[in-house]
């Protein structure tokens, strides 16, 4: 799907990671009043990043499952920290997702963000650097750096451009995340103390061979890592920051948050928590699975009773990512593949939903379901796109949502039928709350006069919505290439977990 460009070996990953950073530095010197220029620079930067990420996929050899395109340079020898990047099947799709989302997010903010444009774009580009970096970092400290580096920009984005309760929400977001990550930090240090390295591959090797951890250590370390990631996901019952953050964040913030940031948690579990401490993961498997199943159902129930659209979708994210976490803890190929696809799918569908809510919010300045109804008549185009997004998020076969969901649920069912059964019930509930929302939102008679004058999607909005739809259909009808990208890695992964 991407032209194979094996010939010249650029440091592709560094390019992907650093382009947004450089771009944001460039922005620092831009004139703050020349908003158009700032926006264009940022947009160019993100598109360039997308380009590089495609290049990355082009250079990515999908036939082998090991780390690829690795780059390793000494950084802080004296502390044993190295600049070590690499991608494998697990991360490549997520990097792609991130780079895919960003330009359109930026595009979406052209009309919504008019205050402190410069700061905003700098922040969001830094955010991208952080996200991509975290996905490709192979040095624990480096990962931690990026992981935390996402925090400040997101915090600012929520806090500066957010809604009424933004300060509370931003603080909650920050503290919640910090709680987790600081304990993870401690755990990382302990690992260093135990193995004498921060480098993930080496670390894994040593843990397996020279200096293994005893079960007690495994337990605590696993806990430290998993809690941190579970907060990011967010896994029930650590989810309460999410609704606030989503509701208060500006559109772009919500999109990035739902589209990419939450994946950081599931990715972390997949990349660090489980491979590093397999036994502990195995011991706590049922606990985690039950938690995520509860999360699936609980999130759905919560979503059912929300009146604020963004809150509703926030809770739906809790439910959806419950699936992913559940699958992460089921070590078989189907479920893991499903999990990764589902991360991407959730990124696409929920991201698109948030984009569209942002669009309607710009026109109507309310997120209360009660204030809408019947707008399907006024904004048919909008309604169609919205419906597509909804359908993809409730996993209608033929759209992306279904593929991941099916693989994932089958994987779970295959190893623990009961869990598979319970989790699948989330599919029904998903349809329930989503269609409720659609009914109240789009259909029915028009009760509010203001709704008669809403304008439909304009070209710019179409430009950044259509790619999402295209991806949804592509992933829904011909996901094979994507699956091929991840399969070899996951095969190795599963083998590793088996013994």
């Amino acid at each position, binding site marked *: 799907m991407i032209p194979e460009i094996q010939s010249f070996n650029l440091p592709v990953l560094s390019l992907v990671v650093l382009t947004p950073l450089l771009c944001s530095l460039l922005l620092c010197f831009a004139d703050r009043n020349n908003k158009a220029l700032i926006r264009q620079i940022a947009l160019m930067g993100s598109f360039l990043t997308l380009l590089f990420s495609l290049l990355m996929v082009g250079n990515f050899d999908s036939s082998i499952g090991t780390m690829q395109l690795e780059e390793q340079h000494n950084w802080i020898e004296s502390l044993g920290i190295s600049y070590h990047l690499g991608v494998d099947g697990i991360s490549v799709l997520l990097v792609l997702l991130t780079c895919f989302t960003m330009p359109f997010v930026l595009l979406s903010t052209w009309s919504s963000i008019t205050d402190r444009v410069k700061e905003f774009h700098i922040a969001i580009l830094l955010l991208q650097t952080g996200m991509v970096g975290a996905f490709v970092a192979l040095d624990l400290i480096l990962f931690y750096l990026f992981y935390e580096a996402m925090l400040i920009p997101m915090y600012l984005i929520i806090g500066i451009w957010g809604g009424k309760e933004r300060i509370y929400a931003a603080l*909650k977001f920050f*503290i*919640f995340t910090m709680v987790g990550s600081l304990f993870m930090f401690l755990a990382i240090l302990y690992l260093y103390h135990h193995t004498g390295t921060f480098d993930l591959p080496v670390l894994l090797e040593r843990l397996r061979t020279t200096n293994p951890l005893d079960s007690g250590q495994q337990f605590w370390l696993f806990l430290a890592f998993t809690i941190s990631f579970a907060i990011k996901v967010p896994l029930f*019952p650590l989810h*309460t*920051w999410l609704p606030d953050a989503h509701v208060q964040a500006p559109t772009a913030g919500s999109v990035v948050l739902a589209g990419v940031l939450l994946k950081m948690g599931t990715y972390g579990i997949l990349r660090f928590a489980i491979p590093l401490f397999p036994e502990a993961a195995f011991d706590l498997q049922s606990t985690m699975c039950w938690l995520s199943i509860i999360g699936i159902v*609980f999130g759905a*129930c*919560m979503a*059912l*009773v929300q009146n604020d659209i963004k809150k509703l979708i926030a809770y739906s994210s809790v439910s959806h990512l419950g699936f992913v976490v559940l699958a992460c803890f089921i070590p078989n*190929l*189907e479920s893991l*593949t499903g999990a990764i696809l589902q991360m991407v799918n959730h990124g696409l569908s929920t991201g698109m939903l948030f984009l569209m809510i942002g669009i309607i919010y710009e026109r109507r300045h309310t997120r209360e379901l009660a204030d809408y109804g*019947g707008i*399907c*008549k006024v904004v*048919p185009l909008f309604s*169609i796109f919205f419906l597509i997004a909804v*359908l993809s998020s409730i996993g*209608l*076969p*033929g759209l992306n949502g279904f*593929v991941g969901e*099916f*693989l994932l*649920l*089958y994987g779970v*069912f*295959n190893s623990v*039928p009961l869990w*598979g*059964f319970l989790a*699948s*019930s989330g*599919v*029904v509930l998903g*349809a*329930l709350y989503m*269609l*409720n929302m659609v*009914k109240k939102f*789009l*259909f*029915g*008679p*028009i009760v509010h006069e203001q709704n008669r004058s809403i304008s439909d999607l304009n070209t710019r909005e179409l430009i950044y919505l259509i790619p999402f739809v295209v991806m949804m259909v592509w992933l829904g*009808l*011909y*996901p*094979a290439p994507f*699956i*091929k990208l991840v*399969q070899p890695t996951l095969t190795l992964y599963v083998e590793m977990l088996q013994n």
Partner: protein
Amino acid sequence: MDSNLLWIPLLPFLGFLINGLLGRKLGHKTVSTVACSLPIISFFISYAAWSRLVYGEDALHWDGFPWIWLEGVLEVPFALHFDGLSAVMCLVVTGVGSLIHLYSIGYMKGDPGYHRYFAYLNLFTTFMLLLVLGDNLLLMFIGWEGVGLCSYLLIGFWYEDDANCTAGKKAFIVNRIGDFAFLIGMFLCLQHFGSLDMSVLTEATIIDRVSAETLTFPWGVAGVVTTIAVLLFIGATGKSAQIPLYVWLPDAMAGPTPVSALIHAATMVTSGVYMCCRLMPLFEASSAAMGLIAAIGACTALLAALIAFSQNDIKKVLAYSTVSQLGYMFFAIGMGAFSAAFFHVVTHAFFKALLFLGSGSVIHAMHHEQDMRKMGGLKKQLPFTHFTFLIGTLAIAGVPPLAGFFSKDEILFSGYQQGFLDGDGSAQIFWFISFLTAGMTAFYMIRCMSMTFWGQSRVDEGLENKVHEPGGWIGFALFVLAIASALGGFLNVPEFLGGHTTLGHFTQLHQTPILTAEQSDALHAAEWQSMFLSLLIAGSGLVMGIYCYGKGRDFRESLTSSAAGQAFGRWSSRKFYVDEFYERFIVRPFETLSHLLFILFDRILIDGICVNGLALLTRGIGEVVRKMQTGLIPGYLLTFGCGALVLLYILLNFLREGGAQ
């Protein structure tokens, strides 16, 4: 390998794209041309394909491309399969579908959502064809949910009315419940068959292997095949409106009438039956499942018929009759008479579409008046409609030689055979139920006829003279369908009437038993008996109806006014309070529970106490610590001194102990 198959579903999809994207720009004319021509073309393509089957080829197959494709672990291709069964279904779908498309041109004239309507209709056709042609359950599932989506969209087509949207939502969600079971069923198939390909699922040897395996549930052990069959059947109950998931279908009548005809009568609702036929060997392998299916089928048939008695909305009557007919089909499946069931699918597609379209033209003529109490004596104004509707009625009532007669007779015979020849007790009961139902069907259809067309007019003056026969495409569609439902029966004339059960053989659903002469004689005798009985019951039903709604009005009065009559009337007209039951005992409790959870658990417990509570606690401690800083120098000095003392004490104490040791 025949990629032309792809065009059958693809063409309507193109129609959907064109109308959906550019529909608003194009005029009504282009829209309808595009929308109707494409299904017709795919009708002819499937016709061509069908003819290839007729001339020997046993099946056409398109390998397609890898879809959900985990190399060596889970390989689901996007492949199409065209055998006898799917061929016939294709023809029905595209044929009847095209007719209804044409009909809609007249019916939907001047509707603001014209292009939207046709787009949906095309999309539906696409998904239906995908459902029919899909070579594996998962692909079928795309169609399966896709048609659900379309019905959702079309039921809520006039979305300004809240009720319509609610109905649509209900349809989708109830279907989802079924699909949930379907999904689990597929998981089990994957687990035990290792594939979802129809060829594998119907492979006798594999089925034998699997049927040896069992699953343990908390409540006991069950065979894998049985479980799968039951789960898939539950899926079917959702789609095909069987107990307990039939409740959405009557509400689905909120949609435009052609939609009701196409989706909720002719095609979609029969996809459950189609699925069962597709997996015939699988179902046959589990007698328990078959029993359940038969029971559900029979009961559904009866219940729906009972409700149909007292409905005054013409479409509701037809809706319940649909449910009841579907019950028949499942009854047949339960009895192992797949060919009969599928035969009934086909004939039912004809006459039920006819009836709906007829009612549609009535409603159209009456300016969207559906209440039969406001009709009557329309025979004069709508002679043609009346004629076609009559044919439909007789067909469904099972009057020879119309289509319904043959199919229904086969179904009843299958019950009769299993019940009385093979001496199966439960089968006898089910047979009897469906036997009664046949009579009821005739009765309430006659009731519907007479309330609508016969007797003196109850139409309010305003309309009286406006009512006129809708011509054009509407008439054409009615005409074609009337012929079809008149002659459709001859597709599958049983041997004892000198036929060859063509359809049965063509679809490979009917296997002629190898019998000795006297066995076949006995069989034929039984067939004659059963046919006689069914004719009898149908006739009596007709006569009763004609009498009650003709001369014997006072007799009817006396019946209805009697206590039992009233009680029955109330229950029947309130649909036996099933909706209320669901509403009160499932939907509402669930919502209240969610509310409670949200307030108590999420807001108060987690967010309030655990999160913010902790924060407050910390700040409280901070406040206390802060207050310890009094600002008095002596206080500071004392802190200093005491601190020094304590440290000194600790030190010396330690040293003393150290010295002691």
